[in-house]
């Protein structure tokens, strides 16, 4: 006990910064309570790169983001929500039905999607930038992460599940797997948050 109080007193020293407080970030709620609780700042970080690893395209990774996108595009000071080279056409009526403000959505179809991604992240004109990447090197991800912090932008990078083995400078990494009633989200890395896996229900998409 005395050792504990000694430690507590030591930790009160203003020169000591602990991981959790240092990682306190501005965040936007994911819209899912269970997921919010596991994330530092209780939501998606407002600036920094987040990786979402999926076994294949379309397992529910976009649904995971929709509530946050709706919140972000509807703010009075909303910036762009950029989709860099999405694999298919985003279906505008469905996005509008989920509460997204279409005027704030910008689609960029680029041959060099990495360049467009970095430009958008670093420009400071975007709230969210999403990109679908194939293979990336750690150096490139570090550049993206720095650009996202420079532009105070939430960068979302959708990658294949196999990338989970590689290390990454992204501040948040999670894997999403489809379940019959929703999806399982596994936190692989979260600065100042806790890791683990959570199951979240489907967005009620017609089922």
């Amino acid at each position, binding site marked *: 006990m005395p050792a504990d109080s000694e430690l507590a007193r030591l930790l009160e020293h203003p020169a000591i910064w602990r991981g959790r407080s240092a990682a306190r970030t501005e965040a936007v709620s994911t819209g899912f309570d269970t997921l919010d609780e596991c994330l530092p700042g209780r939501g998606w970080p407002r600036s920094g790169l987040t990786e979402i690893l999926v076994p294949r395209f379309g397992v529910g990774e976009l649904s995971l983001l929709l509530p946050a996108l709706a919140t972000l595009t509807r703010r009075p000071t909303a910036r762009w929500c950029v989709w860099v080279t999405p694999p298919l056409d985003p279906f505008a009526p469905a996005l509008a039905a989920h509460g997204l403000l*279409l005027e704030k959505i910008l689609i960029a179809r680029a041959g060099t999607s990495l360049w467009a991604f970095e430009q*958008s992240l670093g420009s400071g004109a975007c709230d969210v930038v999403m990109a679908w990447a194939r293979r990336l090197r750690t150096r490139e991800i570090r550049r993206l992460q720095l650009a996202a912090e420079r532009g105070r932008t939430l960068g979302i990078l959708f990658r294949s599940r196999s990338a989970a083995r590689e290390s990454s400078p992204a501040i948040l990494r999670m894997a999403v797997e489809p379940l019959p009633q929703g999806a399982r989200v596994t936190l692989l890395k979260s600065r100042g948050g806790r890791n683990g896996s959570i199951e979240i229900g489907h967005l009620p998409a*017609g089922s």
Partner: protein
Amino acid sequence: MRRFTAQADEASVRISDEASVRFSDRANVRVSDAASKPLPTPEDSGRKLTSLRSVRRPAGAPVAGELWIGVHLFTGTDALERLATRAQRFTPRVSLAPPDGLLLEVKGSLHLFNGVEGLCSCVASECAALGMQFALALSPTPLSALVAARCGQSAAGRPIGAPFIVLGLAPLVGQLAPLPLKALRWPQEMLDRLARMGVRTIGQALRLPRAGFARRFGTESLAMLDRLTGRDADPRERYRVRERFRRKRDLTYELESHEAILRALEPLLRELGTFLQARQCSLMQLECFLQHRQAPVTRCLLRLAAPAADATRLGELLAERLNQLVLPEPVRSCELRSGALVRSTLASNTLWQPGEHGGAVSVESSGLIERLRARLGPEAVYGLQVLPGHRPENTWRAIEPHPSQEPGVAPDVRRASSVARECDAVRAPDVARAPVATGTPRALRATRASDTRSLPWPPFSRPLWLLPAPRLLSQRNGLPRRRGALRLLGDPERIESGWWDGREIERDYYVAVDIHGVRLWVFRERAAPHRWFLHGLFG
């Protein structure tokens, strides 16, 4: 205090009366051939300043110290602006009176062009050079100059003898009196009423009682008469020449690399920057021409999403565009040409950085679009818009993104969706209603009620991704397959629409799950082969 103001008013009236008398003394060279007196004293010019400052002057205070040439064009009105530009060599105060009139304030220029006659002949030869049929008039008020010119005879080809020259206010009314009223271009109905009263000339109209005239024909007509005779001030907007930036630089040696060309363009860009800054203008379009020895000129066009005046930013964008160019030959000279200039609107800076708490975006917003477009091409960057209708292919389209748009649903979109509900829903009577979803995430609850009201279908039954065209699925025993059998969820939604434009669809849409757990939007044709198609992913 009150008395004091009244006295001051009286004084000013008296002073200006004196001035006008004195002015009219040296008034007319030809019409009232009075002896000419010395040029206006400093007191005159001081009074002119006060008259400019106060737009609405007290009644009875005449406009003095101005002399206007009115030019009326019988032909060649399309060259009005060209004439206005050329007329600026006579005076800086040139005003357009569209569609066929031009006004020059020439008081200060008379002594530079050999007096009235010299100036009139100069203006006349300028008009004749442009091949116009025209008439001139000289008068102390702009409106009277214009009206008198309208009544004049075409002077083209004749040696100039301007028929209407009045240099002072005093003889003005008398000179205007015989002119027909229709030169004032009042409505025909009003002219007819005046003609029935026996009023056909300006002089007759001026003799009518003011109060009665205002009551019958409106105060605006009375004010026009006041401006005509100089009772009231008649400020005219000055014509400004539309400017463009155009600079060429011949190089001493031929350049091949893009960096070298950019360096060669740098002084031109700097010049463009100061040019724009001095005029407080921005541009929307910039052209760069690169000349070669043999090959045709390479043209590089830069279109901007929002007006820009910053030379470094323009330079960066131009660099992106130039890097895309394939040059056939080395470059010998380069040229920059601006598009039309637009007046800069200066945005106020915010305390916060964009993205910080409370920080909004300003220039970054359009800057991003421009940068992306400069590299990826103009079609590669677009926004989304919802269109009314039931056919999934026709319910959205790509649109030009609007960087300056205020947040909030655009009114026309809202209107379009309500139209959809009214017309398209009637034509597609049997749209099955999918069960309404429950358990909406909490972030959406607030927005749902307002946004989905105008949608013609249940909100959560649409996929987030749509295939560009439906993809045919294989089938076994009438059920669709994609990397294994698909499991269909829930009831079908029938979409039948489009019979009126030949692209009719009759489909039953299902939500399906494949073996990997990916949720798909598939449909079965209602027509004979009953094929299955994949149309979207729920993602």
